[in-house]
């Protein structure tokens, strides 16, 4: 059961990530107070993506997993992007 390669992440790393997540939360709330027009949603999504990347990479250990896990995650995200993207060929041009 024990796997030599299963990385043991120290508490300190987790705490740092947690602080970073809180800072990013403050930033996203602050950014929402200003109107950047059409950019609003992309700024919000960008920060959310950054936050979720931190959670996936460190909290969920994706950084330490083998390539298979990363590739699979990429495939899942790509397919979701395709679903949303192709739907917009209908929505935007109707």
């Amino acid at each position: 059961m024990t796997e030599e390669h299963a990385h043991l992440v120290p508490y300190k790393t987790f705490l740092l990530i947690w602080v970073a997540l809180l800072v990013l939360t403050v930033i996203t709330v602050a950014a929402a107070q200003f109107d950047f027009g059409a950019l609003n949603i992309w700024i919000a999504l960008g920060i959310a993506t950054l936050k979720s990347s931190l959670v996936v990479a460190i909290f969920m250990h994706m950084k330490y997993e083998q390539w298979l896990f990363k590739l699979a995650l990429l495939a899942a995200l790509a397919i979701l992007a395709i679903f949303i993207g192709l739907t917009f060929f209908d929505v935007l041009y109707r």
Partner: protein
Amino acid sequence: MSGHVHKDYTGAKFGMWLFLFTELILFGGLFILYAVYLARYPQEFVSAGTELDVRFGAGNTLVLLTSSLFVAMSITALRRGAKGLTQCLLAGTIVSAAIFMINKYFEWSAKINHGIYPGSEHLKELAPGEMVFFNIYYVTTGLHGLHVVIGALLILWTMLMIARGKVTGEDWVLLENAGLYWHLVDLIWIFIFPLYYLILH
């Protein structure tokens, strides 16, 4: 790669990740709808979105991020042999889940008291885009809340297994997978928060 490893740690984790992808796509269906309706009703989404209380959303973000920290640390704690600390951290996660749901209860109650809920008379007087916003808000946060409850039950089960010595510092795959599930609940919320609560305040 041999064929008869009865407990394949990597395999178990990989299976869990595959399951998380299905959860991601499940919520993905709702995000598709959100994107489509946002594109169609940008003004109404802003006017309806300002009705949501950002304090509830931000508070729950804080709660979930912290609970995620607890779960992440609990694995390190268990593998270092600190069983007591592990249980404390997991208990902290369950308390966080409870706080999250209580917050949600008050948030929904306030909305419902204002007559904003699916099928209500007041909702039907709003603009179509605002109706869509509140409907999808209820569905998305409702489905997410359901996942919070399931995740908390999963953590509770893991605590029980740790207490009974079935999950240990040498054999912690159940904790790892329950943790992965909990982080997913956090991940979804990381997107729900700005999309619903912060849409141009």
